[in-house]
């Protein structure tokens, strides 16, 4: 059997990637695999190719079409790329971000008319640095997956050519309900701002449009400013991540444009639930919070913050976590200080007095609040997020004689 043709083919593939290989050595390897070990010729070609790819630190094609071992590259639109593909894109660098590791030379987002994708240029690729805003032809890069999100890898076999076009490329914003992991653009309103949960976090909160809501996170980086609550923004090329099967938008890479005016947002986020409080959870009542700016975590009894350790200069706060039950469904509720104060009629300073002057300490506040609220009918208004109702207002229900009369009629009617 003649192996020179196959060997030549493999050699060509590597010379395209600027690597020189020993054709005779390849031929020898192929012969050994096929003649001595009974490997099918196509499989032998594949395994020799992969061995060489590894040797040159090029991405190995794991699963394949079989008919094109070594990976044929196709010119594609970004939206059509699937992990495992070797691709050639003509795309614009719409965002560059600071690489998280020295093995990465550049990372950011590439876009064409069809969509956008995250990309990484390995330092080892020795590729020319790309400039934000310019179009490039990127040949023979690999699409893979990182945490379930497609990402384009530029390796030493990839060629990058600047195209000289200056198409501005304006992305079409998607609706929030249509977002999926990867890169997305939306036009939405900032409807809520939440406490930050990490010291590197600049802001987090909730964005809404007519179709839904999504959490957003903005990390502290030079040039980043907080979003204004109540304002509408066009957000281009944000990273859409998934955590606990909920999507969230990371705005680090995004281009943000504050817009004039208002926009309608989904009303379904606002709910009012009438029911009985059937459980008050531990951790309710008076709590101590970490005083470090931007932390605000609840401290343990020993004033221990999971991030900032012992914090003797803690800040007191009130909250109630519990379950509100309407007889059909039980809703996890979270009440912040203002709501707790108006519902229990125990203001924070009074709660602090109780906690500091009573033998039971903070437990006494918990018990008093539990005895006032447990088993009572209330109506809670707020937003339901991640299966938890963040309560904006909560009032005790009052007996209504109109309702009584209507029920008497209903029960007294002919069956």
């Amino acid at each position, binding site marked *: 059997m003649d192996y020179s043709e196959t060997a030549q083919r493999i050699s060509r593939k590597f010379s395209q990637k600027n690597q020189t290989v020993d054709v005779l050595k390849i031929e020898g390897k192929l012969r050994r695999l096929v003649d001595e070990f009974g490997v099918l010729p196509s499989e032998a070609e594949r395994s020799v190719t992969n061995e060489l790819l590894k040797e040159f630190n090029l991405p190995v094609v794991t699963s394949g079409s079989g008919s094109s071992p070594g990976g044929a590259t196709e010119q594609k639109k970004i939206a059509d790329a699937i992990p495992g593909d070797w691709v050639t894109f003509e795309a614009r660098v719409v965002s560059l971000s600071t690489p998280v590791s020295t093995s990465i030379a550049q990372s950011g987002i590439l876009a064409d008319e069809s969509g956008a994708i995250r990309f990484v240029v390995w330092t080892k690729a020795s590729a020319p640095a790309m400039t934000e805003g310019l179009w490039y032809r990127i040949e023979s890069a690999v699409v893979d997956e990182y945490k379930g999100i497609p990402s384009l890898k530029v390796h030493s076999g990839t060629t990058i050519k600047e195209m000289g076009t200056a198409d501005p490329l304006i992305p079409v914003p998607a609706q929030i309900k249509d977002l999926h992991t990867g890169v997305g653009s939306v036009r939405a309103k900032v409807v809520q701002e939440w406490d930050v949960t990490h010291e590197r976090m600049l802001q987090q909160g909730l964005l809404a449009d007519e179709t839904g809501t999504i959490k957003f996170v903005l990390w502290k980086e030079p040039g980043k400013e907080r979003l204004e609550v109540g304002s509408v923004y066009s957000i281009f090329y944000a990273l859409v991540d998934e955590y606990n099967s909920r999507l969230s938008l990371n705005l680090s890479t995004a281009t943000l444009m504050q817009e004039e005016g208002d926009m309608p947002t989904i009303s379904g986020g606002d709910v009012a639930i009438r029911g009985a409080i059937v459980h008050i959870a531990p951790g309710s009542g008076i709590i101590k919070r970490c005083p470090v700016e931007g932390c605000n975590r609840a401290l343990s009894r020993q004033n221990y913050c999971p991030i900032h350790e012992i914090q003797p200069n803690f800040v007191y706060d009130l909250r109630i976590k519990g379950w509100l039950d309407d007889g059909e469904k039980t809703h996890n509720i979270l009440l912040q200080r203002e709501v707790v104060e108006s519902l229990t009629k125990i203001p924070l300073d009074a709660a602090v007095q109780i906690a500091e002057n009573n033998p039971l300490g903070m437990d006494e506040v918990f018990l008093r609040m539990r005895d006032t609220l447990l*088993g*009572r009918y209330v109506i809670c208004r707020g937003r339901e997020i991640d299966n938890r109702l963040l309560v904006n207002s909560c009032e005790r229900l009052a007996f209504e004689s109109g309702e009584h009369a209507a029920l008497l009629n209903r029960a007294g009617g002919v069956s």
Partner: protein
Amino acid sequence: MSMNARDVGKKDAPFEREPARRVFAAELRECRYQFKEGEEEKSPTFVLLPTGERSNRIYLVGTLTEKQRQGDQNLFYRGRVVDPTGTFFVMAGSYQPEAMQQIAKIETPAFVAVVGKPSVYQKDPASTPMVSVRIESINIVDKETRDLWVLDTAARTLDRIDAHAKGEGKDIEKAKEQYPTLDPAVFKKMAYEALAQIRI
């Protein structure tokens, strides 16, 4: 096909707490059938209400008229909570230390709100089955809360009777099978009488 609790990741099924059903004492007293959903040890047990709804938990408001401390090694409390239609038999054992402390503090008579788990038991094969409620929490409340509960429970009971008549609901067939002699109209009359006892 039974779902293994360990296989149900957070992703697929976020924890759902069983809702507390609203049921009058006169209806709960009629329960005879209870069943378990799933094979796991921790799978919830349900009591089937005669109006055709499963109930793993109930919320009730009434007057605690009597309470009794029982047992030496295994201390527990029994109590009677009365609503306009009859009596709930409630109990709190050493496995519910919080509930036991709560009921210990309450002096009878008092309006109480109880959240708990109903179950059907029989002292011996010859005796009539009883329904008792294992207390998760018990708390003193006011008369207005009691009245609100009567309205709420009447409304929920009437909803169940309507669903029963239309055959809408996954447990209605089971209820017809298990309680062939019970006419839901009885519970409509019961709801009316409960409502009529509230003086405005």
